[in-house]
């Protein structure tokens, strides 16, 4: 062995003397990295507590991804200590993280049940004031998912009246969401009740009571939701249910036009039929006779419907109206008056009149006779369409 020292030969040449300490690309100090990382925390070394809890979090997330509920629960057990983190920022963020992960575990774990979930949710709600609303909302959704509508509604009602905590913007949003879902649940109950009602015979002694109940319910629900949708945001699912209720109770509401636009875009036939109904519904009312949008929509939609071979739909609607609409909307008097007041409106009405009453109707003929620089071409086009599509047209009546 003593020969050894003579037989030594470093494989590194003299030129590379520097590189065993420094990397080829310049200076590198591995130990410096850890110090740089401490800049964010004010120069103090990261505590092992922080390191192990973040490792714990990774393990939980990994276990959840792999659907290893048991493992996730094991790590969760240890993760609860972050609620006592001496770092106040982390301590405040902990309840939300724990709720998200814990609720997921309890949702899927085979040994878990509704009771455990509810206990957990109630506990998490009461840790600090910041999380009550959010957790309540999510808890309610969970209950909904499991078909526990009454419990969900109760939850939401409780949450709605909760007055603690800061008045932040997110709090506002959460309250709105809570109200929205509550409204949705009310809509669902209303819908069910309506269904019940439709099954009852009008002469049935219970009918009135149920009808009254439905009616009251409608107003309550619509009141809730109407307040809600005044707030900017995307409320589509809620609006639909609101509008449906409104349609029952206030068909002439201006929202009906928007409802119509939604309906006509739908893929479902029944929705599109309803779209037509809605339009006719709106124009049944005196207050809307001069609503140009309604007429425009109706004109367009009628044409589309007739082009789409849905004569039956139009006839359905027209049957109940053909006795009174002509004098209500399409009298000679109206023709003169509308044309004088608003030529565009008159045009649209004329088109509708033409489609429904045929080219011989007074309204249509009057507008046709009028000379107008801008609308002239449009009127001519109208004439052609009416010829082609009017329901009075013998060609199409089959």
């Amino acid at each position: 062995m003593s020969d050894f020292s003579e037989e030594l030969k470093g494989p590194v040449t003299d030129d590379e003397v520097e590189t065993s300490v420094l990397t080829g690309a310049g200076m590198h100090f591995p130990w410096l990295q850890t110090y740089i990382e401490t800049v964010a925390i004010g120069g103090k070394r990261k505590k092992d507590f922080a390191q192990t809890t973040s490792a714990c979090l990774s393990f939980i997330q990994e276990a959840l991804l792999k659907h290893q509920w048991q493992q996730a629960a094991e790590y969760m057990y240890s993760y609860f200590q972050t609620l006592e983190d001496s770092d106040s920022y982390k301590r405040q963020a902990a309840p939300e993280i724990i709720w998200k992960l814990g609720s997921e575990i309890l949702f899927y774990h085979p040994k878990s049940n509704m009771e455990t979930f509810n206990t957990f949710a109630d506990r998490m709600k009461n840790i600090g004031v910041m999380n009550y609303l959010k957790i309540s909302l999510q808890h309610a959704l969970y209950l909904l998912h499991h078909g526990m509508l009454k419990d969900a509604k109760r939850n939401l009602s409780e949450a709605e009246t909760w007055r603690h905590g800061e008045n932040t913007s997110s709090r506002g949003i959460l309250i709105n969401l809570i109200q929205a879902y509550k409204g949705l649940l009310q809509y669902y109950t209303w819908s069910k009740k309506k269904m019940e009602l439709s099954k009852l015979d009008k002469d049935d002694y219970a009918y009135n009571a149920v009808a009254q109940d439905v009616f009251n319910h409608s107003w309550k629900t619509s009141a809730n939701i109407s307040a809600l949708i005044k707030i900017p945001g995307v409320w589509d699912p809620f609006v639909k249910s609101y509008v449906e209720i409104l349609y029952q109770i206030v068909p002439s509401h201006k929202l009906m036009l928007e409802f119509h636009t939604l309906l006509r875009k739908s893929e479902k036939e029944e929705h599109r039929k309803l779209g037509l109904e809605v339009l006719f519904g709106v124009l049944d009312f005196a207050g809307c006779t001069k609503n140009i949008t309604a007429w425009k929509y109706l004109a367009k939609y009628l044409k589309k419907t007739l082009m789409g071979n849905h004569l039956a739909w139009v006839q359905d609607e027209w049957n109940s109206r053909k006795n009174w609409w002509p004098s209500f909307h399409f009298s000679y008097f109206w023709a003169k008056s509308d044309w004088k007041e608003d030529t565009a409106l008159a045009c649209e009405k004329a088109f509708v009149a033409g489609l429904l009453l045929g080219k011989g109707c007074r309204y249509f003929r009057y507008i046709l006779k009028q000379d107008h620089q801008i609308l002239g071409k449009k009127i001519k086009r109208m004439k052609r369409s009416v010829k082609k599509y009017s329901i009075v047209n013998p060609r199409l009546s089959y």
Partner: protein
Amino acid sequence: MDLEEAEEFKERCSQCAAVSWGLTDEGKYYCTSCHNVTERSQEVINTDLIPNTQIKALNRGLKKKNNSEKGWDWYVCEGFQNILCQQAEALKNLGIGPELKNDVLHNFWKRYLQKSKQAYCKNPVYTTGRKPTVLEDNLSHSDWASEPELLSDVSCPPFLESGAESQSDIHTRKPFPISRASQSETSVCSGSLDGVEYSQRKEKGVVKMTVPQTLAFCYLSLLWQREAITLSDLLRFVEEDHIPYINAFQHFPEQMKLYGRDRGIFGIESWPDYEDIYKKTIEVGTFLDLPRFPDITEDCYLHPNILCMKYLMEVNLPDEMHNLTCHVVKMTGMGEVDFLTFDPIAKMAKTVKYDVQAVAIIVVVLKLLFLLDDNLEWSLSNLAEKHNEKNKKDKPWFDFRKWYQIMKKAFDEKKQKWEEARAKYLWKSEKPLYYSFVDKPVAYKKREMVVNLQKQFSTLVDSTATAGKKSPSSFQFNWTEEDTDRTCFHGHSLQGVLKEKGQSLLTKNSLYWLSTQKFCRCYCTHVTTYEESNYSLSYQFILNLFSFLLRIKTSLLHEEVSLVEKKLFEKKYSVTKKKSRSKKARRH
């Protein structure tokens, strides 16, 4: 509700005209004769009569009727003493002789108190004019061998009764001026009497006591006794909760309340770091002016010859390698008594890293035998494999590849389990630490919440999975000949990598590369850095394996390896120096 608790309230009762007041749970005065409750609460009164409201409030435990709220008066160093006691006791349970606790550690501690002028000296120093006489008496009377009790013992009544009993009257019988005055003014407080002041204390030349430093004391004692526990063993036992450290304050007596600044002093949330404790050991040893420690001779556990054997066994390397490690020890002089023995006063104070040094020697030997250049070790393995196939009856030649495969698997498994255990570690104690009395109910509520949540989730966890605490062991890996699943390489032969040359054996490998070509000569704490990508994968694996074993950073081990090589190849280093100098001259 205690009678006549509120002596300071002197008004007559509006209903019965008596002057006999007690305190309700909410801290309001009530007449003890007719039970008429007033709206006056205690603090309001105090502001009028006594200047330092908060002292009184603290002493009375604010609104709580439980007067032991404040607990005993205690000093921070008493807390440390308690922890040291606990640790010594734990070491005793591990098999260390009782002299460590009763004699060695106790003496070191007393000496520390003396040197830091906290006790056992003529004029113990405290700030704000505190009279420390009581503490001094207590410490000198303290019986170390008794249970880890508060120093302010029952044997000294005036000291104890303050606040502990409802009848005591603090403002008439003060053994010392209440130092809390300074605390209440700044609205920072602590359970200990000097907690706030302690955390701000910055005395030059005095080594301030901290929780990590308790381990330095333990290690010094172990070293003095030359016990068979290395520093890495000690720290590993701490990590495995066999030695109190993380929540040691939990076992303080009930009446020793911790809060406020005590948190920062006693509430540790990191495991001890080898280099840190090592540094502190040297520091404390120097500060205490300790003499040369008992010699570390060849028969000591801490001698590299013995430690190398231990580690070779632990990582499943052949016993035959031991000859080589002994040889390296001899050549480098690392087995010399003077090299190994800790002498704080002398300059050779920095050699107590016995475990790291032993492991570094093994690494050097592995490099000597196998070069570890990601090439030679595998070709040598091929030869060994061929030979072993042909000669199944003989002692098998050590096959590096086989060893690597088995060791890597075992190492990966162990490391994974270790990481999982760490992720699950519960740092928070049953006794929550809180900032102040205002914070206390919140802290306790949180704790209750956590405990409830844990209870709920423990029903979801399979109870058989949670194994009991492992019993402490010096070995982390165990290999036996009888185990057929995993080959035990202890008995394997190094014939495949050695060759005979006359009387002596030489390694077949004739090359070597140095872990560090050039050492840093500036004042930084390290003499070299470790950039992994510069080194072979085999070398990286070896370093990772041993670093994990000792729970140290790979850079520390790499440095130690470099230092061993520096001693071993002294000539080479001076040769390199000459060469580079001449080259430089040529360049110019």
